[in-house]
C-alpha cells in the first residue's frame, strides 16, 4: 500500500482501455445481431475495407453490406453518442450541483424538448417534413427550458438549491402546457408518446452528422473541467478560497452539458436513467474522483445505450421496444438497488 497511496488518483490507462474494448465489443455484437445475422468476421473485414487505402473482401453480400453501413452502423454510432453524452452530462450535473440525484434533465431540458416536439408534431405540417422540424423544435425547447431555469434560479442570491428548484418549477410549467396540448390533440397522441419514449430507430447518418459537432464540443469542454469538478466537491466557499471562479466554472459546465443534452434529446427523444445510473454504477466501481468518472462515464454510457438498443430491437423482434422503456425497465431496479446499498453503507 505504502507507495501507491502516496500518489494522486489518476485514470489508469488500463481502465480506459477496458472501457474502449467494452464499447467496441458492445458495438460489434450489436452490428452482428438482428433480423439479418451478420458474421463478426465479415463485419470486421468489411469495416477495415471501408478504411481508406485498405482493400479487402469481407464476403458480405451487397444487401448485408448495406444493412451494415446504412442501417446498423449509423444507429450504433448514434446510440453511443447519445448514451455517452447523457452519462457525461449526468456526471457533470452531479458534480456542479454536488447532488447525486442530479441528471441531465434537472434544468427542465426534457420537459422543454418534450413541449417543443409536441408542438411540432401537433401544429407542424402534416406531411413527411414533420420529422425534419421535430428535432430542431425539441432542441429549441430544451435550450429555452435550461436558459429559463438558469435565469430564474440565479436571480438574487444564486445557490445550487435555487437553481434546482427553478429547474423543477420550469419543468412542471412546461410539462403542464405539453400535457394540455397533447390532450387537446388526441389524434397525435401516439406520435407524441413514441417520441417521448425515445428511439434510435429512425437513425441514419444525417442524425449522426447533426449532433456530432455539439456532442464533440460539449464532451471536450466537460472533459477539460474534470479536475475543477473535484475542487467543486469542497463546496463553493472552499473552492473559491482555493482561487476557483466557481460561478464561471458552473456556468461553463452547465452550458456544455445542457447543449450536449439538448442536441441528443432532439434526435433520440427522452431516454431516461442513462444520465443517472451510469455515473452511479461507475462510482461503485471506480470511486468518486471526477478525474476518473468524467472520461469513463462517456464510454460506459455509450456501451450501455448500445446494448440497451440491441435489447430493444431484438427482445420482442420483429417489433421494437422503445429504448426509453428498456433503459428505465433495467435502470429503475438498478437504481433502487444502489440506493439500498448506499443506505446500508451509511448506517
Amino acid at each position, binding site marked *: 500500500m505504502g507507495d501507491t497511496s502516496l500518489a*494522486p488518483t489518476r485514470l489508469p490507462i488500463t481502465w480506459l482501455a477496458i472501457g474502449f474494448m467494452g464499447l467496441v465489443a458492445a458495438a460489434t455484437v450489436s452490428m452482428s445481431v438482428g433480423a439479418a445475422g451478420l458474421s463478426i468476421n465479415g463485419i470486421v473485414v468489411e469495416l477495415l475495407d471501408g478504411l481508406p487505402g485498405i482493400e479487402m473482401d469481407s464476403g458480405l453480400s451487397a444487401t448485408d453490406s448495406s444493412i451494415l453501413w446504412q442501417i446498423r452502423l449509423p444507429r450504433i454510432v448514434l446510440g453511443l453518442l447519445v448514451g455517452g453524452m447523457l452519462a457525461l452530462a449526468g456526471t457533470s450535473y452531479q458534480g456542479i450541483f454536488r447532488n447525486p440525484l442530479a441528471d441531465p434533465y434537472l434544468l427542465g431540458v426534457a420537459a422543454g424538448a418534450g413541449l417543443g416536439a409536441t408542438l411540432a408534431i401537433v401544429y407542424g405540417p402534416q406531411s413527411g417534413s414533420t420529422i425534419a422540424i421535430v428535432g430542431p423544435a425539441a432542441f429549441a425547447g430544451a435550450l429555452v427550458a435550461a436558459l429559463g431555469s438558469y435565469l430564474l434560479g440565479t436571480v438574487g442570491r444564486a445557490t445550487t438549491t435555487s437553481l434546482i428548484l427553478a429547474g423543477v418549477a420550469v419543468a412542471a410549467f412546461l410539462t403542464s402546457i405539453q400535457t394540455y396540448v397533447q390532450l387537446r390533440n388526441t389524434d397525435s397522441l401516439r406520435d407524441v408518446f413514441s417520441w417521448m419514449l425515445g428511439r434510435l430507430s429512425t437513425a441514419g447518418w444525417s442524425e449522426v452528422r447533426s449532433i456530432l459537432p455539439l456532442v464533440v464540443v460539449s464532451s471536450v469542454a466537460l472533459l477539460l473541467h474534470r479536475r475543477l469538478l473535484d475542487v467543486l466537491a469542497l463546496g463553493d466557499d*472552499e473552492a473559491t478560497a482555493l*482561487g476557483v471562479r466557481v460561478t464561471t466554472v458552473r456556468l461553463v459546465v452547465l452550458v456544455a452539458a445542457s447543449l450536449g443534452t439538448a442536441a441528443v434529446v432532439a434526435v433520440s427523444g427522452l431516454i431516461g436513467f442513462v444520465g443517472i445510473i451510469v455515473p452511479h454504477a461507475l462510482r461503485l466501481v471506480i470511486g468518486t474522483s471526477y478525474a476518473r468518472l468524467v472520461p469513463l462515464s462517456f464510454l460506459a454510457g455509450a456501451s450501455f445505450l448500445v446494448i440497451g438498443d440491441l435489447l430493444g430491437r431484438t427482445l420482442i423482434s420483429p417489433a421494437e421496444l422503445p429504448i426509453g422503456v428498456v433503459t428505465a425497465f433495467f435502470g429503475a431496479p438498478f437504481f433502487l438497488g444502489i440506493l439500498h446499498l448506499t443506505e446500508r453503507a451509511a448506517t
Partner: protein
Amino acid sequence: MSTITFENVSVTYGPETVLDQLNFTIESGSWVSVIGPNGAGKSTMLRALVGLTASEGSITIDERPVTAMRRRELARSLGYVAQTPELPSGMSVFDYVMLGRTPHRSYLGSGAGDDLEIVREVLSLLDLERLAGRPVSSVSGGEAQRAAIARAVAQRAPVLLLDEPTSSLDIARQQEVMNLIDGLRSTQGFTVISTMHDLTLAGQYADRLLLLANGRVRGDGSPREVLTIEAIERHYGAYVRVVEDADGAITVVPLRPGRQAERDGATFEG
C-alpha cells in the same frame, strides 16, 4: 513579507452591521487570535479577508488591496481552513491535500511539475503519510483537521487563516492541532490568524489577541492585556477567574456564579 491591514472595514448583511469599521494591522510572522462572543463577527472577518464576503473599506496584503488581486493570486497569499471543512466522500487524503495546489494550476491545465513533491512533503511534515490512501471522510476528527491544515499548507501561501481550528476536538487533539500550527509557524514562517472560542488556548499560543464584540474591536493586545475579568464579563457576559502563571501564561476559568472568593484568587479547597 505579508503584512495585513484592515482600514475602516465594514460588512453589512441587509440592515445588519456585522463588522463595523475595523482598523488594525497584522504583522508578518505573528499569530493573532480573534476572540469574541458568538455572533461577534470573527468568522466574517476571515471571510472578508479571503474574499468570500463583500466588505467596504480597504483590506491590503503588503499594501496591495485584496480587491485588486486575482482570485488565484489571493489564494496563493492566503491559505484558508473553514470552520467545518467539507470532506468529500470517497476522496483520498492525498487527493484532498493535492487540492491545495489548485491556485498554482492554470484554469484547465494540470499542475506544475513539483505539485506531487510538495504534497508528499506536506504529508510528511504533518505526519499524514500513513493516511494518504484513506478516504478523508473516514478519518478521525483530529486527523481530518490535520488534513485540512495540510491542504492549506500545500497552497504555499504565507498566511494561514484558521476558523475555529479546535472546535469539536477533544482536549488532547486541540493541543495537538495548536502545537502543529505553532510548529508550522516557527519552522515555515507562517503568519497565522485564527478565530478561537477557547480563551485559554488562544492566550497560550497567540502573540496577540483581537477581541471583537458586536462587530467592533473591543480589545487588542497581548493575552495578558486583553484577557481581563472585566473585558470577559462585559463582552461575553461570562463569570470567570483569570489566573496568571509565573511565566505570564494566562488561564481563564469559568466559575459558577457566587464563588467570589475563588474569583479573587483564593486557593481552591481540597
